[in-house]
């Protein structure tokens, strides 16, 4: 197997005196979908947000251990954090288009890094919107407010906005929790198509979704990594009793 995209080594994380993650070690392979699942409060979202240092914004936290991206510690002091976040994009649980037009939303990231050529921006937008399976629905209304889109469209717009950064990794935090089944299926299809070119880490909104998507699955319980391995194996023959109890619906 190739070198993993992310190597998480002995990671513990605290909000004040509250421990959210306890000695988690995990490898996230490139060009695959890694699923972080488990009951609420298990530390999935925290772990996800540590991967692009979004939790830097939360005061009073403490991190122990290391997170390596392509072998390099992303928490070392010389890291350019905005550049890291362009390499590791994030889609949030709720669709959060910025109060701008559709086009301005998709091109937000490239414009931040100084790209001004409107023809080039439009090309990037088209490619990103196609990647998120939204182009056909919005091609004639790119200058309308993003907030005029439906919930499902907004979430695909948020995915497109991340794709426009041409990131290496895409993090998704329950991206379909606010969506209907048809929109959910569309997002899932997009993700499966995208994994050829991207490393995807997702916190799913259900065990079923975890099982549908996982190339690699990691089960987190109360801040501890209980078990991780290839998705098909983990969901059919879990090694740990707690994993089995959770995926068969005995708790959670």
């Amino acid at each position, binding site marked *: 197997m190739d070198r993993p995209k992310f190597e998480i080594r002995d990671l513990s994380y605290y909000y004040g005196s509250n421990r959210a993650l306890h000695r988690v070690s995990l490898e996230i392979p490139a060009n695959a979908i890694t699923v972080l699942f488990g009951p609420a409060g298990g530390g999935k979202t925290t772990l996800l947000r540590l991967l*692009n240092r*979004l939790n830097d*914004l939360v005061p009073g936290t403490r991190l122990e251990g290391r997170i390596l991206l392509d072998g390099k510690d992303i928490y070392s002091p010389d890291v350019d954090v*905005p550049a890291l*976040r362009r390499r590791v994009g994030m889609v*949030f649980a709720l669709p*959060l288009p910025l109060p701008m037009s559709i086009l301005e939303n998709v091109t937000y*990231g490239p414009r931040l890094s100084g790209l001004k050529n409107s023809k080039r921006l439009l090309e990037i937008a088209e490619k990103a919107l196609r990647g998120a399976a939204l182009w056909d629905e919005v091609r004639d209304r790119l200058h309308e*407010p993003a*907030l005029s889109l439906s919930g499902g469209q907004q979430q695909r717009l948020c995915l497109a906005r991340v794709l426009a950064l041409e990131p290496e990794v895409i993090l998704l935090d329950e991206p379909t929790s606010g969506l209907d089944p048809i929109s959910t299926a569309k997002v899932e299809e997009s993700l499966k198509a995208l994994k050829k070119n991207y490393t995807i880490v997702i916190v799913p909104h259900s065990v079923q979704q975890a099982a549908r998507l996982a190339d690699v699955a990691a089960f987190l319980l109360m801040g501890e990594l209980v078990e991780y391995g290839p998705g098909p194996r983990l969901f059919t023959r879990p090694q740990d009793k707690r994993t089995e109890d959770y995926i068969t619906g005995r708790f959670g």
Partner: protein
Amino acid sequence: MRRLRRLNPRTVDRLVGGLIWAAAVATLLILLFVIVYVSANGFPRLSWGFLTGKPQNMGRAGGIWPMIVSTAAISAMAVLIATPVGVATAIYLTEYTRESLLTRAIRFGTEALAGIPSIIFGLFGFVFFVVYLGLGWSLLSGALTLSLMILPTIVRTSEEAILTVPRAYREVSFSLGASRWQMVTTVVLPGALPGITTGVVLGLGRTVSETAAVILTAGSALHLPRSIFAPGRTMAVHFYILAREGLSDNMAWATGAVLLLSILLINVVINRALVALVRRRAVR
């Protein structure tokens, strides 16, 4: 309390509804009364010559063109000085620092500053700008003094406006690789613009209508100011002197009408502009 509880909630509701309605109507009526009273006394005496002419005989006759110019210059300068400083302070407080002794000190300072009577600002402006810095009675001294006076308003309204921008937008912006300053300029400021503008307009209104602080720092010279280092008399000061010294009630009312009109105009124009802007940017 016991009696109140025995009352039928529907009756209480109607009673309270009526009282609230009466309060709102009273507010409106008082406002209308002031506007109508000033207009009725002032408008009949307005003329093109009054707006564009020089005052004659200490303001008993002639026009108020120099006062219009002085007012516009002092208010514009005060707002142009106070807005960047005030908005920057608000951004610092909300986006660039966590709660600390320093932020509490700044907040306490602005709040204390907001409660100080304008005459004290005038005195300070006189001692510091006019005398110590040697700017003399001038439009600049007046503007600097007024900018200090409206700074707290602008800081506080800007801070409140900035805090209404959802935290999630900031996270989205950061997650797409924005630096802090990029996040502020692309997400926070556009979202907070209506609120910030409200604060600036409030401040502008105060500079236009201020008298005490202006007399002490910009003087009350009747002639047209030729530079920002020249003294000048604003419309509010002119109104005050005409009325206070019994020079001419008619001219005072006419000046008052122009003052009122300009404040209404500022509010209407800026409100229109804001509504247009918000419509263009946002929802549905």
